[in-house]
């Protein structure tokens, strides 16, 4: 499968990580070019968009379901909007954004394919990060316990989990191929380290940058 992306200046990457912590945020910060127009779906308390605004002059908007986190995001000066990702994109015209980001919430949406299609309508490119259910720890947990897998990345009991779609890296690759989407970049992470081989087994997080074919 796809090779990890080109190395980036380590100082820059370290800076990104120090501010953002999460590995997928670091990568998103690297992909997006200065002054881009960005929509962040599931923007949480707006940290990523604030960082992008401060460091890349990015004009960002965010959608977030939790009213408390929307308030926190707005208090950071982020143009956040309280709404549901599954239906929140309808207002936007085609190609309203350079990038539409969905970070670690794809597995929580009701209709992932509809969300991805809508994202590709309103954005020139989309950045999707999701946890890989094909990781060996998930497989091991399931095999040994015989129960719904629980790992550091998926700590929930089955009845409390916000995750309703269980996808692996291979699943996602197949979807992109079937939909004829062009994968421009792909990154695989375990912890905050890049994974070089066998990503579907070794990666905990995958980040894809995609555009329409």
């Amino acid at each position, binding site marked *: 499968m796809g090779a990890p992306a080109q190395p980036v200046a380590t100082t820059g990457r370290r800076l990104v990580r120090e501010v953002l912590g999460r590995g997928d945020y670091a990568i998103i910060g690297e992909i997006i070019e200065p002054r881009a127009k960005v929509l962040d779906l599931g923007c949480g308390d707006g940290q990523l968009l604030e960082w992008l605004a401060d460091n890349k002059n990015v004009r960002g*908007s965010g959608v977030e379901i939790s*009213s408390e986190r929307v308030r926190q995001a*707005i208090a950071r*000066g*982020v*143009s956040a*909007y*309280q709404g549901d990702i599954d239906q929140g994109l309808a*207002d936007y015209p085609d190609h309203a954004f350079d990038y539409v980001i969905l970070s670690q919430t794809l597995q929580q949406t009701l209709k992932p394919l509809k969300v991805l299609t809508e994202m590709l309508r309103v954005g020139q490119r989309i950045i999707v990060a999701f946890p890989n259910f094909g990781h060996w720890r998930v497989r091991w947990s399931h095999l040994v316990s015989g129960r719904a897998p629980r790992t550091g990345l998926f700590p929930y009991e089955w009845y409390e989990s916000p995750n309703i779609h269980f996808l692996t890296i291979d699943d996602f690759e197949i979807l992109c191929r079937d939909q004829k989407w062009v994968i421009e970049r792909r990154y695989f992470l375990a912890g905050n380290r890049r994974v070089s081989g066998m990503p579907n087994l070794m990666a905990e997080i995958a980040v894809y940058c995609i555009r329409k074919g």
Partner: protein
Amino acid sequence: MIVETRVVQFDSLTLDSGIVLTPVDVAYETYGELNPRKTNAILVVHAFTGDSHAAGIHEESGKPGWWDNMIGPGKAFDTNQYFVICTNVLGGCRGTTGPSSIDPASGKPYAMNFPMITISDMVRLQKRLVEHLGIQRLLAVAGGSMGGMQVLEWAVRYPDAVAAAFPIATTARHSAQQIAFNEVGRQAIMADPDWNGGDYYGTKPPARGLSVARMVGHITYMSDESMKEKFGRRFRNREASAFTFDDEFEVESYLRYRGSQFVDRFDANSYLYITKAMDIFDLAQGFHSLPQALEQAKARFLVISFTSDWLYPSYQSLEMVSALRSRGGDVAYCELSSNYGHDAFLVEVGEQTELIRGFLKRVYKEAA
């Protein structure tokens, strides 16, 4: 913070109707200091019956301003950083020219000879004052209810003069229900014989009509929940009804008190003119659609609504948010949870402060 109201006079103002008003007084107050580059000015716009006394303690009356909990040192609109301006609206009765002002043509109060005014006229006059103060671009325009309508008008009419717009608990146009409540108020005033075709200055004002109008207004500003909490079915000074039409219930007594108090500070003809201006207001007028109107705006928007506000329900805020998003507008939106109904925008200080303070800080940084 002790403050004083000032008045500036302009030679004339051309209204939407084409009529030229000469001269025009504007009452205003300011808080904080304008910076040398004049980039820290915020215009705060009052609701229907408000006035230019938005913050601080008035030097004569000793009263706090209507948004004193939001404007001041360290508050949402921090006067240590920003220069805040508030004016009484055109058509008002608190220092700015309105129907109770003297008509230079007759030497008597305008009364019903006062020309019809619009929200756009109010904003045009505010623009004059802002320019008079030497300010080209406002950091923000903020206001709730009718104030929010003016915020929208500012952002659309003067896109280069507004960096951020905060329309709170408001709408881009009144619904039939909102017009209906205003019409009940107007008819209550006009049905009072003391109204006398608007010609009551120097004699007895239409106190009963104006008071009833205010009572209706107050009901629409509260919620079922907040009224239940505040009054319930409690009686005043007794255990049960004495089978009279006196103000036995707490809620009756409260409304009567609010109504009679209002008469002392508000002019009945101003009530007529301003409510009509609100009803006529439609931000989309002169454009093909609301999105097309809002497309003119260049400001960053922060739209706020409240869950229990049934007079200006959240769907009206969502309508403008949707319209802005459909045309690439920059808009933040939050529906705050509150039991206070429409009054929430004056009462719910904590969360509004969090939102406005943070958002303003960012806009100020970007503008610098």
